[in-house]
């Protein structure tokens, strides 16, 4: 399968790969996918006020899945939570020129973002 240059670039030079402290109140963690499906994405955001100041990912999956999550973290930094919640998988598909069989990778990234925001907000509610 031929990959686009952008996918290869994110795969070879992943942005924001790593982990934030999942126990911190300022950090929201989203883990989506399943090992038996061949895709697991962990996406974390660090929030100050309404703003995402940092984002990290770790992904088990194909090159497109890695690239989708890497790109997502790049975009998330500096966004407000509302803006992040509005991020659509189709924007990722377009930016990386993902073929139809790889669209689920971008869907997973969108789900991971929403799941991380949810986690952050549920922590805030408990305070």
């Amino acid at each position, binding site marked *: 399968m031929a990959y686009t240059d952008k996918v290869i670039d994110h795969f070879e030079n992943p942005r924001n790969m790593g982990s934030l402290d999942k126990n911190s109140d300022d950090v929201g963690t989203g883990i989506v996918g399943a*090992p038996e499906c061949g895709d697991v994405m962990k996406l974390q955001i660090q929030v100050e006020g309404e703003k995402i100041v940092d984002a990290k990912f*770790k992904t088990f999956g*194909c090159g497109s899945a890695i690239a989708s999550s890497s790109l997502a973290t790049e975009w998330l930094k500096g966004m407000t939570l509302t803006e992040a919640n509005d991020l659509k998988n189709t924007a990722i598909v377009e930016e990386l020129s993902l073929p139809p069989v790889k669209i689920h990778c971008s869907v997973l990234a969108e789900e991971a973002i929403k799941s991380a925001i949810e986690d952050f907000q549920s922590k805030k509610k408990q305070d």
Partner: protein
Amino acid sequence: MQTPDMQGEIVTSTSTEGTPSTAATARVVYLDNYSTTRTDPRVVEAMLPYFSEEYGNAHSRSHPYGWGAENGVDTAREQVAALIGCKAGEIIFTSGGTESCNLAVKGVAAMYAEKGKHIVTSAIEHRAVMDPIRSLERNGYEASYIPVDQTGIVDHEAFVASLRDDTILVSMIFGNNEVGTIQDVAKMGAVCKERGIIFHVDACTGLDTETLDVDAAGIDILSISGHKIYGPKGVGALYVRRRRPRVRLTPLLDGGGQERGMRHGTLNVPGIVGLGKAAELCVEQRDAERARLTALRDKMFAAFEALEEVYLNGHPTQRLPGALNVSFNFVEGESLMMGMKGICVSSGSACTSATLEPSHVMRALGVGEDLVHTSIRFSLGRFTTEDDVDEAIARCSDSALKLRDMSPLWEMFKEGIDLNAIEWKHD
């Protein structure tokens, strides 16, 4: 590096002539020999005269062009027969492994339908056997798929128990193309002989290194593929037993009466000559190649095993020498292939297949879905050198370590989290 005693002056294996090159920095290493092999240059040389000099139809009996082509075909028939210990008159030439397997399965089913409509096979057949049997099932035949253990060996008791009075065919893969496990076909052949059931063996993968004798193993029909044994693509052979018992097959195509009426159509003379030469070279080299490839393959696995959480798929020893199917736990197979740029391999990961379905073979072995997604098949062959293997070890290990760093599953595993206890959100 040279591979001694094999190519003579013709080939040095690191020659990259005709090999597609990617980045200037990364040498391309071909370790996908169970997908297809490079046509041996000695095979190409043998074929060349049959394109533009001896270009006759092997069935033209009235002029020298026909006789020349016929001579080429006759020699090839002898060479292929010598590979499996049969008579030249028992070899039929086809367009490849898929046609051979289809002709065997459907040809027996149609010819012996009055005797019965039950077929026995394994759960780990190549689709060239599995799909024709499935097609027969849709047309009134019944099939039993014998399970295998976790190393890929067919359950012999279940096999014997599955045979019925109306069983007309047993079709069994010899060396499995995905994991390399070799079946004890002689043991099954003996049972078939005793019960008077026709025994077809799909030997498309493995005859370049393994010795298989159709009489000793009680085989009635055997499929051979050209391009899996360093011959050309688009040509194959089928052994069809002539005596004790005389096996007959209903042809797939109707036509000019060639190949004892079982495979009509003008013979692919250059391809057949190439297959013959390929078979001859296999006989010459199989024992030495078996030893050489086993050592290279084991060296590779030993290096991978030094990483944690690496598992071999297939039988530890009763396995084709070129086969190394490995699961690198917590690293998805397609990304691993992408990471070890320039190392040409296959993956059991669903992501790489057209259907997005994980392999039925891995499933039959009971390899967990999570591990199937992390599997890579390396398949070594005649032109694989030790340098190739070292290069693959280095690039694959490096890539696996980098991807584990990136893997949330590896992180959880290292934190002592039980991944099976997690409720995953399926998409």
